[in-house]
């Protein structure tokens, strides 16, 4: 079912939704770019349609809405632990097709890999997804290659068309929302990208043996191990535990989990000084094979969704997609060994 909304009607709907949901969407943070006098598009809470940035790719993904950068697991005293109180407001996330595919990856990790994750479920179980269509591909996108350019898994779509907003409703639970504002009913087709400039081809016979290829070596010096690629990635799920204390004697505090990056020093450090993958090229290899090889071995589909955010953000202009396209060469190399 489709609707077309005026800005006024859209904002009435936003007001209505805001009573039950935290509306999480890509927005422009005017002065918060890395460089002076630059902005940044990333996710944040919105209250009206004008808050949403439709025409740019967000630098960071939606994932922080269901997988916060930092999450308190519990508060502790010497003798007991207490869980934090949970905000019972539900979350509605405005996101693109590729990112909806990313949700499936997060679910795979947090619902299925090992026991179901308690804290993830608290947030994730109450999320509604609103699809933002893509009129055209952005720079570095390779969603078509990864098969994430289209989706049916959303509650309704919300696309900006000049001065109106077009809605394709999937979840009938929201019918009244649109009827209430007398939205004009119309056939609406969600725009999906059908071609990207960037294309990748993950070789069929990919195997763990490519680890010993020399294609990774150039990243030893090119990569600076900053982890930006992991933090902007909508499918990176790793975290580290932190015990934060409030008092000098450390008897009262909280345990948190915070995002972690397999590219950043310390990721594999074990007590006593051991660590693995000291070379940055090997970290690149570990990350890349996780995204386009071993995650699939374990779970049946690739982790990477082809959003290209890692390429967008890399200060050293390292292209993940370009590295994927070196895999056939790497395979040939290791097969000759």
């Amino acid at each position, binding site marked *: 079912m489709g609707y077309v909304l005026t800005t006024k009607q859209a904002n009435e709907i936003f007001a209505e939704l805001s009573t039950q949901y935290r509306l999480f969407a890509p927005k422009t943070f005017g002065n918060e770019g*890395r460089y*002076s006098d630059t902005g940044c598009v990333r996710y944040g809470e919105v209250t009206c349609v004008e808050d949403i940035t439709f025409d740019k790719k967000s630098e960071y993904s939606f994932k922080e809405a269901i997988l916060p950068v930092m999450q308190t697991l519990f508060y502790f005293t010497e003798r007991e632990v207490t869980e934090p109180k949970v905000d019972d407001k539900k979350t509605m996330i405005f996101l693109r097709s590729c990112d909806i595919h990313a949700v499936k990856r997060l679910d795979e990790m947090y619902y299925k890999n090992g026991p179901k994750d308690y804290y993830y479920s608290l947030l994730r179980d109450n999320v509604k997804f609103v699809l933002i269509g893509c009129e055209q591909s952005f720079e570095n996108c390779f969603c078509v290659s990864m098969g994430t350019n289209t989706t049916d898994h959303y509650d309704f779509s919300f696309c900006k068309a000049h001065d109106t907003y077009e809605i394709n409703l999937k979840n009938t639970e929201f019918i009244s929302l649109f009827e209430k504002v007398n939205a004009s009913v119309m056939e609406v087709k969600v725009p999906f990208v059908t071609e990207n400039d960037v294309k990748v081809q993950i070789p069929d016979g990919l195997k763990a043996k490519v680890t010993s290829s020399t294609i990774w070596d150039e990243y030893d010096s090119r990569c600076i191990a*900053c982890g930006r690629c992991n933090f902007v990635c909508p499918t990176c799920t790793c975290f580290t535990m932190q015990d*934060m204390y409030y008092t000098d004697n450390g008897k009262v505090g909280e345990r948190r989990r915070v995002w972690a990056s397999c590219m950043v020093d310390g990721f594999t450090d074990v007590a006593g000084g051991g660590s693995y993958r000291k070379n940055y090229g090997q970290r690149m290899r570990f990350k890349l094979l996780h995204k386009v090889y071993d995650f699939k071995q374990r779970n049946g589909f690739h982790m990477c969704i082809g959003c290209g955010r890692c390429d967008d953000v890399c200060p050293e202009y390292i292209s993940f997609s370009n590295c994927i396209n070196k895999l056939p060469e790497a395979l040939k190399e290791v097969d000759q060994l």
Partner: protein
Amino acid sequence: MDINTKKLKKNAFRVTKVRGYTASRIRVPGGHLDVKFLPKIQEIADKFGNGTIHITSRQGFEIPGIPFEKMPEVNLALQSLIEGLEINQDAMNEGYPAAGTRNITACIGNKVCPFACYQTTAFAKRIEKAVFPHDLHFKVALTGCPNDCAKVRMHDFGIMGMTLPQLDPSRCIDCKACVNACKKKSVGALKTENYRPVRNEEKCIGCGECVLNCPNMAWTRSEEKYYRLTLLGRTGKKNPRLGEDFIKWVDEDSIIKIILNTYKYVTAYIDPRAPGGKEHIGYIVDRTGFDEFKKWAMEGVNLPKAAEVTDRIYWSGIKY
């Protein structure tokens, strides 16, 4: 040949080693200009000079080899440049009205450079508008960050961009990129405490390395732009020295006010017998004492809350 050298100097020409020939200096506030002005410069050099130009150490152009008698024609030709580069002028077609206060120089700033904390050229132009024309020998330079590529500490007024870094602890993942960058590239004002960076406010120079290196945008820049104002550095034969910090975390308006106040101070205290009416401000301050200078300079200045003013400055430098 009868030439008033005092007058021609004020008109931004100079007496050169070649008798009968002068050179014209074109000021480019902030050191950045549209290429549409270049053909005119070329034309003047071709038509009146010897077909060469010198890119000056103060980011202007100097056209050498101009016969003195061509000065009025050169002034006419300069008019479009003076207007195009928005240089204040008393009367049209008479060239530059003064030369004492030198071109306001600037590094490339945040037009291009990732480190820069502001638009250096824009601020340079604002200062130019406020202070020029003036015959007093003032040198002002702006640089985008504490790297000081513009060498502002060798000027009377050195302006260094700063940003007051803002931490959103909820975005910090304790990767220590900021702490390491600050230690290795800057002043080591950050340390980790309880998995979060803690900024030593006294030490921090506002360079923004923490913001640049933060992979998760936990550090961002302050909405307000801040500056470090350094005072009375100079080159020269007598006692060259680096400018010392006067105010840290100062704003644009205060800087302009302080510079304008200093013109009044110098007018009141300059040595009337100074050769060529030219005396570095520093030597005047050496004479009146810093407190007197500060009294004049800070007249009517409303500093931002964050500003830290140095009580008394002691300069070092080379003494022969």
